């Protein structure tokens, strides 16, 4: 290998802008020696210019989106930069009704409703829900649940509402009227007492049907409700004896109207 071969190898780095100052100096001397060297440098610079336009695309597997949609359900967003400072001119950070609204994220949104409860934690959502078929429908596999959660969240008509759970924590219902599906996300809610379980209900007038049992995987967890949702219905969570009940055995103590 000759010294020229070695110096020719600097041409690529020169065009891409990645030579060290020492290498640049050496390459400069190499260029001064011959027009042929300079021609190559010009061509490589042309390549680098065109490279600036490159925007590679690789199709991700569908699972990636599903995982992300499930993850953001319980992931808080950072506060806006300069939330209190005014930064006129920026469409995002400018003080505006939209910016004002953004200060209260959906998962931190307090819901004005307090109906005192006795012992049982019961949360009732009104949004548009329907009836599950079985009394205790089997819980679908988690992967299928996350598909459904992603679908609900990504639906154009997706809505969500949060309430404070009696006994501590917060519960959020995410639903899509067009999909007739809903999911509940809980945060900071304690496990049901020994021998008890949380149970989800679709409630329409005085008729309540089970939407499955809610088992908490951790302080933050979520579950897609079994069955379908119908406009005008409500969703509630009660504490029931282990295994669940055919009908709620405790009265709703909190009501949310969407």
């Amino acid at each position, binding site marked *: 290998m000759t010294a020229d071969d070695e110096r020719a190898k600097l041409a*690529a780095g020169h*065009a891409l802008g990645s030579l060290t100052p020492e290498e640049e100096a050496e390459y400069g001397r190499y260029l001064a020696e011959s027009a042929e060297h300079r021609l190559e440098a010009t061509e490589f610079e042309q*390549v680098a210019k065109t*490279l600036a336009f490159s925007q590679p695309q*690789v199709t991700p597997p569908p699972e990636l*989106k599903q995982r992300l949609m499930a993850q953001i359900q319980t992931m808080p*967003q950072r506060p806006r930069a300069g939330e209190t400072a005014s930064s006129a001119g920026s469409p995002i950070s400018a003080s505006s009704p939209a910016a004002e609204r953004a200060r209260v994220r959906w998962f931190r949104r307090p819901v004005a409703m307090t109906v005192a409860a006795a012992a049982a934690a019961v949360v009732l959502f009104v949004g548009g829900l329907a009836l599950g078929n079985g009394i205790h429908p089997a819980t679908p596999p988690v992967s299928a649940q996350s598909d459904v959660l992603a679908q609900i969240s*990504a639906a154009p008509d997706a809505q969500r509402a949060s309430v404070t759970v009696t006994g501590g924590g917060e519960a959020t219902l995410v639903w899509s009227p067009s999909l007739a599906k809903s999911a509940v996300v809980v945060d900071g809610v304690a496990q049901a007492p020994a021998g008890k379980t949380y149970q989800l209900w679709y409630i329409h007038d005085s008729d309540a049907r089970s939407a499955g049992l809610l088992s908490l995987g951790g302080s933050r967890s979520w579950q897609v409700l079994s069955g379908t949702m119908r406009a005008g219905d409500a969703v509630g969570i009660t504490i029931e004896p282990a295994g669940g009940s055919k009908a709620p055995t405790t009265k709703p103590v909190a009501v949310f109207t969407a």
Partner: protein
Amino acid sequence: MPQNSDMLGDVQMSSNGSAANSAVAIGARSGELLARVAEGDQSAFAELYDLMASRVLGSIRRLLLDSAQSEEVAQEVFLEVWQSAPTFDAQRGSAAGWIITMAKRRAIDRIRASQSAHDRDIRIGTRDLQPVDDVAETAEIAVERERADRAMQSLSDVQRQVIALAYDGGYSHSEISELLQVPIGTVKTRLRDGMIRLRTEMGVSA
């Protein structure tokens, strides 16, 4: 759902026409969507993902090669988009540019992390990443983009990787050598062979 890792290897080459259309749309659309994501709008996040995911993964894959790792990094990028959307300042550039730059940065971080056990003295971050060009897209730019992507696609994975590290990361020969744990002579040869191939594919003549 079956795992289809082959899918990751497929680079989407669009026709000139659709490339122009999508490119024009992306700049403005990404900004609108990110503003809604900043307000906690999950539908907007889903749409922003659809708009940007293949570009994010493409940029990462070019630097990382490994498909599983690239997918992990893409996931991290989108989670950061969700979390940091409220802090995005539109005055600093386009939303699409912000996201792609984040993807490249995290891909390089990942290479660095995998090599840190080998060599903690590696000089990194000495240069800023190449800024993403945020100018409004025209059909001509879209044609150039396709020409560049097609030429890059003709390279071997390792050639493409060193060119991306030199160009996107501004890394020197010795830095790339340390990052990838390959001899410096190999880095130089890959860079040169890659540039010669690109010159041919792009039909460049001075």
